[in-house]
């Protein structure tokens, strides 16, 4: 009955590979997000989707692409992985941004 679930929890891969992180929410929220947390714990928004429309796209390399097959899912695809992509990636959802977000448990990506 997890509200926001991400898979996998850990991902170790080599430079140049393409990988995906999946996110699903069962809260019926309208908006989903991806955040990146770096080694210094800074959280930065990457994308958000509202009703299948991208409404925020920060200065993220186009190697990163969000894919939302439906309102309950927002997957993150990363092409040609680089060492600097190593971080923890959090998925989140909200019904209304005013009421805060519910976060997944995070995916720790390590690029070697």
């Amino acid at each position: 009955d997890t509200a926001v679930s991400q898979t996998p929890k850990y991902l170790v891969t080599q430079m140049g590979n393409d990988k995906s992180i999946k996110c699903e929410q069962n809260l019926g929220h309208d908006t989903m997000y991806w955040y990146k947390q770096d080694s210094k714990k800074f959280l930065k928004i990457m994308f958000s989707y509202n009703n299948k429309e991208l409404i925020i796209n920060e200065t993220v390399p186009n190697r990163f692409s969000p894919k939302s097959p439906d309102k309950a899912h927002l997957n993150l695809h990363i092409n040609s992985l680089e060492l600097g992509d190593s971080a923890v990636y959090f998925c989140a959802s909200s019904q209304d941004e005013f009421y805060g977000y519910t976060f997944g448990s995070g995916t720790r990506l390590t690029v070697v």
Partner: protein
Amino acid sequence: AQKVTQAQTEISVVEKEDVTLDCVYETRDTTYYLFWYKQPPSGELVFLIRRNSFDEQNEISGRYSWNFQKSTSSFNFTITASQVVDSAVYFCALSGPYGQNFVFGPGTRLSVLP
């Protein structure tokens, strides 16, 4: 531009001590929202509180309390009688009137020692 500053990078206290985590924000919006999140060692992010800019009443929830001072652009968080389970990184965050420009502070790592 929105900005959140948490000047305390790390704080260590002994169990049962009170501790206050500082948060100072910058915004040009007259209406905005402030948040606190907790990230325990397990990694997940836990929503603690949301406060809108028109509500300056302090809030208390169990051992947690929040002091919103619009005049100093601060939204400080106090844990009373801290416990080891309070050890976590705490993030203050700010959003615009429609939830846009959601920005997190850098976080404060709190260690509560037994």
